[in-house]
């Protein structure tokens, strides 16, 4: 079997059905490789730690085994989530591949969506009850057995579509499992109050797993592995297709922003003598303070104002912009964020209280209150409101970043107000999610604003990187560079 190609164009780590060389260590390396393909940065040292951790524990419980790997390989909460998914998938596939190699398969009926008519008659109503009870009692082992029974019963009725995802939903529906309360059922039915949502999800996962196992057994080969992207799929995609790539760039951005400004330190002298350190240094000259020590000054972080267009014309890009905003908030204490459509609304608080990017975007969508009457951006109004909000705070050390497409929908761009803002602020940047080709066509008035700020086209991650470079290279801190 040839190595399946992942959609990202990189070859899959190993031919899935072949034995991995190097025994268990090889398996572990393959697992690490698979994690890397999903964007979890697994270093060699992490893999060494994993091996050391596995040596320290008993291998009798799958949970311990997984937790030991989880403690050493992923280093962030979101990586941990990816890890769980990849772990399940990897070891399931590894087990299935081994079963194929050794030619092990199930003797009697059971999980087999295509076996019609054979196997014991199942009382569907009783099965429904038991499954609902098992889910509510959260009994994993029982749920797995019942999932197999359900698939068998389902197969008997000959409704298998052959597509795993479709079958899972069909089985779930035919079992009458829902999260919502079903008041028409008798009061002693466990499904009456609705099934807990996570329980339901786990049961679906088990169904999927068993169906896949049956399919693999039927086809005698593993389907090509797909890179998981359900983490990203929840977010709308757009010109910036690969949000994972965006997140990577944003991570770089975050690091650069966090470390930049350090170079400026030490070059400038300032007046605060650190008495303690001077005394300490004077010891080397016999108590005479020859060398004056200055109190180290924290690099003065610039104040940043970010305005982000969230109107429909930039829907896809605004998700990306919001994630940039989110990253910026990690690095700057003095940062105020605004979103705008027709009017402007400050969202600094939302970013300050929420860590999770998805909740942030939900909350902004829900209660930012940008007075979205027409859904059309009104830049003129936005500028004047922005000026009213921050006029007194703007100073030459402030940086203003606007994220938007500069499409005014025929309204007055009021570049004069924008010019006023740009003049008061130290630096002004504009990130436009449209290719430069489309600038100033139709109702785009970017040229009117470009006179007062530095505009960047920003619709690929590479361009975002360019912007980050431009933003950080001269250093945001010293206003003197302007």
């Amino acid at each position, binding site marked *: 079997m040839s190595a399946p190609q992942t959609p990202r164009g990189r070859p899959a780590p190993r031919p899935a059905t072949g034995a991995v060389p190097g025994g268990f260590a090889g398996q572990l390396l393959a697992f690490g490789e698979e994690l890397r393909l999903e964007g979890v*940065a697994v*270093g060699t*040292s*992490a893999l060494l*730690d994993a091996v*050391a*951790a596995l040596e*320290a*524990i*008993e291998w009798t419980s799958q*949970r*311990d085994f997984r*937790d*030991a790997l*989880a*403690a*050493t390989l*992923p*280093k*962030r*909460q979101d990586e*941990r989530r990816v890890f769980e998914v990849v772990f399940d998938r990897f070891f399931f596939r590894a087990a299935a591949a081994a079963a194929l190699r050794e030619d092990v398969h199930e003797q009697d009926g059971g999980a087999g969506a295509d076996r019609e008519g054979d196997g014991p008659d199942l009382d569907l109503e009783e099965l429904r009850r038991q499954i609902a009870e098992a889910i509510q009692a959260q009994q994993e082992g029982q749920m797995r057995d019942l999932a197999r029974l359900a698939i068998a019963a389902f197969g008997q009725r000959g409704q298998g579509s052959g597509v795993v995802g479709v079958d899972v939903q069909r089985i779930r529906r035919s079992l009458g499992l829902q999260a919502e309360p079903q008041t028409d059922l008798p009061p002693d039915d466990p499904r009456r109050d609705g099934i807990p949502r996570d329980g339901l999800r786990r049961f679906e996962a088990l169904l999927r797993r068993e169906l896949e196992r049956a399919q693999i057994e039927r086809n005698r080969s593993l389907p090509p592995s797909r890179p998981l992207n359900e983490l990203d799929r929840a977010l709308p995609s757009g010109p910036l297709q690969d949000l994972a790539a965006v997140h990577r760039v944003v*991570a770089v951005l*975050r*690091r650069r922003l*966090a*470390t930049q400004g*350090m170079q400026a330190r030490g070059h400038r002298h300032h007046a605060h003598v650190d008495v*303690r350190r001077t*005394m*300490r240094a004077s*010891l080397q000259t*016999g*108590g005479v303070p020859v060398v004056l020590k200055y109190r*180290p000054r*924290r690099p003065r972080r610039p104040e940043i104002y970010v305005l982000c267009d969230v109107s429909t014309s930039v829907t896809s890009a605004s998700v990306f912009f919001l994630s940039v905003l989110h990253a910026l908030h*990690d690095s700057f204490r003095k940062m105020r964020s605004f979103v705008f459509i027709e009017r402007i609304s400050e969202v600094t608080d939302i970013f300050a*209280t929420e*860590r999770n990017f998805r909740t942030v975007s939900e*909350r902004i969508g829900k209660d930012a209150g940008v007075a979205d009457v027409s859904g059309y951006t009104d830049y003129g109004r936005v500028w004047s409101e922005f000026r009213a909000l921050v006029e007194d705070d703007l100073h030459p050390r402030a940086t203003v970043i606007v994220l938007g497409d500069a499409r005014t929908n025929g309204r007055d761009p009021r570049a004069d107000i924008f010019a006023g803002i740009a003049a008061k602020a130290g630096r002004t940047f504009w990130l436009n999610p449209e290719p430069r080709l489309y600038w100033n066509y139709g109702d785009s008035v970017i040229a009117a604003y470009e006179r007062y700020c530095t505009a960047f086209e920003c619709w690929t991650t590479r361009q975002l990187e360019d912007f980050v470079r431009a933003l950080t290279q001269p250093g945001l801190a010293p206003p003197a560079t302007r």
Partner: protein
Amino acid sequence: MPGLPDSALDVAAGLRRVGYLPGDSTALVAFLATRLGKPVLVEGPAGVGKTELAKALAAYLGRELVRLQCYEGLDEAKALYEWNYRKQLLRIQAEADGTGWDRVQDDIFGEEFLLPRPLMTAIASEEPVVLLIDEIDKTDQEFEAMLLEVLSDFQISIPELGRVDSRTHPVVLLTSNNSRELTEALKRRCLYLWLDYPSLEHELEIVRLHAPELPQAVALRLVEIIGMVRELDLKKPPSIAESIDWARTLLLLGVEEIDADVFTETLSVIVKHRTDLDIVTERVGLKLPRAEVLAGAAESDVRSPDA
């Protein structure tokens, strides 16, 4: 003093003995930390027992806990060591006449003039210790970089004195509230443990451990309500410490059943923000039965202990 544990189960049992109920992976990671000698980075929301874990681990292992509380602007002089320059100065003056410079110089940069700060204390201690570096995300990145030497090699370089190697191997815990992304270099050297709010049963157990006199039914109701409150979109969801506080408050008041009135009166124990108070009263308070309604239905509402 117990030696190093043999299995994760030992750790779990030991932590229980000292009054800390660990989750499964918590015990396992703590065990791995003692085994592999690697620092553990503990992340999670505020108030899920990150700092407590370190204290419990110290109590269980019979070790001293050395704590370094991080804050913005924390520097080497406060974390590693400092020269006791007053003493050095005195020494210079006392021996000003007649002593050769070389001798004085040798003298004043000896261990006698070193003021050890937490990291130094942990490294140089004769007995193995548990080192807790609390809220590492509050410091700046330079400090993190400085920690790398300590965390990976357990040594500190002092220019005047040379290298101080650790005599014993400390168990190191770093906690972070995730208010800032930590550097890859630091993370790479650590085991990772994510502590989340405990499950209902787990929290019930914790509350029962800390307030054993509280009736089971009330305790169950309490953790259920806490769970509901945490679901809400709050500035600061109640921590485990606050559920314990609440349990003790209810115990003090001799409450038999949590009804809407009791809830509103004692709400300030678990919710500490003006806006949060409003949200919780509105969303959770109204769902609770009122006292007079309850009087009639008291029997039916009391749950069995194993429910």
